[in-house]
């Protein structure tokens, strides 16, 4: 018997088609997986066992149809609005807030037949790279409980890695899907900016935020991405476009593609195993018929600074609405101003406050030109540089992070070192480009390493094609998520 909770969505759909199992059995397996692992991993903030089981039983009765995610259990990051479950952003300030509406992606999941199991942990308001900034609890990396799962979508990545759900939603602002996917040995991607509707995603930095899939392999990732993508009349920044090629056609063929390898990568500070897997990844794409060449990766020198100015500026405004007046937490006070101060003082965690302060500062009169304006100009330059790069290349390959998962607590006291773990992921965010992280191997300590593929605007198809080749060359998925049960990594 398969451990249903360890199968991919596509494998599950296949079993449903062959009537070998049912959605309720799959949901039961996921809930069992959660029961046995959640105590240690702590991936979830809310689990809706009853609701998920009720929906699964309904789907059992309806029988499989053309819905792309029929009966597939899915976890949703807790900064995405759900009308049947609380949505907290892992912040005290939202408390047990339950939105009166569903995010567009939640509707799309439900229309696609998926079963939402629960809401996953994150860094408060998606601000962080370790999920340690959650106001509620720590999420542990299923590969090594002493290590961080990455962040901010650490709960979603850990849940998929630990065999709790086959697929999950994360959100990526500067790497918040790709970095935890890399740390947890799963596949995660963000699309071109606007590809997935942000309606119902509680904003951190509106011009950067993108919801995206986290899965155990590239095909699941592409399948979920297709369900999520499309123009949404409720999000003016969303875009339309063809998605069929993501899951069909030239899936495994990358012959003739031109892949850029960042020119100065030898100088970068990188973990040895990461460096080695990077080199092997470049060889792998070459062996598959790609031509490779050195590319100056745009924005490596300025994207972190640019990112933290723009993201925090937008965040300082986006988070202004949490004031105790209408919903969430309210601290009692004598005057309106005191009420604002007390509520926000008690409701927000340290990192969120730090970013609101930074963001407020860079937008203030007298500093605006020096920081925000310059960051916007830098952003435009980075975009232009990428455009030029993608005239010469179809994709760029580089590690998702310089190092594998770090120890819990290790970087909490040093925000800048935490920020620097985003160095390889922020350029694609700044430029609004599609990028994926695919696990390619493990370090000597047995920690997974993810490789990142970035393509030009609207070219998710290329991202998926190259990612499939990498996945096939390294056999990571077969080795660690075998269909028959335990992941090898657990045995060590």
């Amino acid at each position, binding site marked *: 018997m398969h451990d249903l909770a360890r199968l991919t969505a596509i494998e599950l759909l296949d079993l449903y088609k062959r009537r070998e199992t049912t959605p309720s059995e799959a949901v039961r397996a996921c809930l069992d997986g959660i029961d046995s692992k959640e105590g240690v991993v702590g991936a979830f903030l809310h689990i809706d066992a009853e609701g998920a089981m009720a929906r699964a039983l309904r789907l059992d009765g309806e029988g499989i149809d053309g819905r792309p995610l029929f009966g597939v259990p899915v976890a949703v990051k807790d900064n995405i609005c759900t009308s049947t479950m609380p949505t907290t952003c892992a912040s005290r300030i939202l408390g047990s807030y339950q939105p009166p509406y569903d995010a567009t992606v939640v509707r799309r999941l439900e229309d696609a037949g998926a079963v939402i199991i629960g809401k996953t942990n994150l860094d408060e308001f998606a601000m962080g790279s370790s999920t340690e900034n959650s106001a509620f609890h720590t999420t542990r990396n299923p590969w090594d409980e002493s290590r961080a799962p990455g962040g901010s979508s650490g709960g979603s990545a850990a849940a998929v890695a630990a065999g709790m759900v086959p697929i999950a939603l994360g959100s990526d602002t500067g790497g918040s899907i790709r970095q935890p996917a890399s740390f947890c040995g799963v596949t995660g991607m963000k699309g071109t900016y606007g590809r997935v509707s942000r309606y119902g995603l509680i904003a951190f930095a509106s011009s950067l935020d993108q919801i995206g899939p986290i899965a155990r392999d590239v095909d699941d990732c592409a399948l979920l991405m297709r369900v999520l993508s499309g123009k949404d009349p*409720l999000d003016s920044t969303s875009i339309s476009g063809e998605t069929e090629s993501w899951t069909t056609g030239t899936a495994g063929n990358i012959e003739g593609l031109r892949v850029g390898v960042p020119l100065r990568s030898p100088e970068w500070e990188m973990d040895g195993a990461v460096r080695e897997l990077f080199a092997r990844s470049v060889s792998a794409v070459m062996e598959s018929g790609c031509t490779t060449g050195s590319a100056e990766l745009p924005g490596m020198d300025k994207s972190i600074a640019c990112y933290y100015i723009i993201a925090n500026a937008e965040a300082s405004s986006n988070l202004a609405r949490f004031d105790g007046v209408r919903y969430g937490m309210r601290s009692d006070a004598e005057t309106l101003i005191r009420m604002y101060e007390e509520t926000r003082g008690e409701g927000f965690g340290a990192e969120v406050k730090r970013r609101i302060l930074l963001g407020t500062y860079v937008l203030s009169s007298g500093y605006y030109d020096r920081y925000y304006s310059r960051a916007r100009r830098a952003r435009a330059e980075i975009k232009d540089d990428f455009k030029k790069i993608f005239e010469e290349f179809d994709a760029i390959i580089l590690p998702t992070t310089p190092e594998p998962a770090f120890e819990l607590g290790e970087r909490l006291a040093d925000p800048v070192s935490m920020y620097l773990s985003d160095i390889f992921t922020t350029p694609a965010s700044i430029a609004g480009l599609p990028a994926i992280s695919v696990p390619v191997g493990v370090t000597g300590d047995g920690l997974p390493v993810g490789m990142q593929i970035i393509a030009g605007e609207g070219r998710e198809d290329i991202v998926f094609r190259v990612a499939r080749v990498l996945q096939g060359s390294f056999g990571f998925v077969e080795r660690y998520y075998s269909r028959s049960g335990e992941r090898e990594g657990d045995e060590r």
Partner: protein
Amino acid sequence: MRDGKYEAVIGLEIHVQLLTATKLFCACPAEFGGEPNTRVCPVCLGLPGALPVVNREAVRMAVLLGTALGCDVRRRSVFARKNYFYPDCPRNYQISMFDKPLCENGVVELDTDDIHSRIRIERIHLEDDSGKLIHQRGGGSLVDFNRCGVPLAEIVTKPDLRTPAEARLLVKQLRQLVRYLGICDGNLEEGSMRCDVNVSLRKPGESELGTKTEIKNLNSFKAIELGLEAEIARQSAMLDAGKVIEQVTSLWDSQHRESVVMRSKEEAHDYRYFREPDLEDLVLDDELLENVRSLMPELPGERKKRFIDQYGLSDYETVVLTAEMELADFYEEVAGLTGDPKASSNWVMREVMGELNSTGRDLGNLGISPQGLAELINQIAAGRISGTAGKDVFGEMVRSGANPGDAIALLGLEQLSGDDEIADMVEKVLEASDGEVKRYREGEKKLFGYFVGQVMKMSGGRANPSKVNEILKKLLL
């Protein structure tokens, strides 16, 4: 100032609530009123995760306004966030426009008997309205978000105004314009049009501007004038006393006729404007601009000029008749049907406007149509009733909604023009006035009027006066 010691420099910011069916960024009804918090949704409540989508109708109306004011309309404008904390603003930022507003560089000509000025319009931008705070007696406040998200076009003038009277006239003209354009009902008291003023003083001939103060909440024409007068008097007294003017923002208290300081410069907001990342650039396509061109009505100034040329009306008449588009349309229809612009003007200005003023009704429900009034005027011209009787007929038409023919019949006011009938009455009058007839024939010719009066009295006012004259003269010979 009147004494010439100081010159006032005044600029206005006028918020115009646009008459769209739905709010600026969501599909909630934009209509005034409703039970508190019933016309709201996640978007206008600024709930976490909700996103704005621009209402193209509001854009069209603002472009119409900008075009009518001769502005340059930007093909690509940018929404920006204006950040400030206040409980009536649910996102704690307003979505407005900053460095790339929808319209710029317009102009308004003020041209009356005593005022001839050219006021430049700096900009017009779109933004969303806030909710309303309801302060509870005994402490605590409630917020009604029904108004929150209603589209506003903010008109900002250059500091080109010099007197409170000019400011008042400008607002009056803008009110007339937005009503002509059908984009706002222009109700200052209800706040569908709101005016903030900025004023500073300087010595005549100086080009540098003094420190300005802002007054908000001027919600009537009178308040605009009084508020400015009071502020100018306050500032000039300060300057006379050698004091320095502080940059403050005040609220006008109509009841006590004074402004109350709301915040000083130290407390002034740093709004931290930046482009609204939830919205794309606002791009105007040819279709929208074409639509605006085709919907542009004849504007008040042009219409006034045409009324003088086409109908030969006086300046005063045209001012009155073009004040409201509905009235001007009404007049033109009457004038067209009667072919008598002057009589039509008299009737519209005296009877119709008198009735509007005394009943407080508007043209739509006055109960009299341009066709009805035209028919009445034509009946008088044809001699079927007298002008005096016409007023009674008009009254009856307003009262019962009857057409002129029925009203005349109902009141029995049809003029008597038959020779025999009138001769009969004249004879009776002369028989009963032996003495007067004798005196008349002896040369007291002014008694003629007396006989006319008697005949008219006997006919109940219905006798055709010229016929009466004619027959009297014959019979008195």
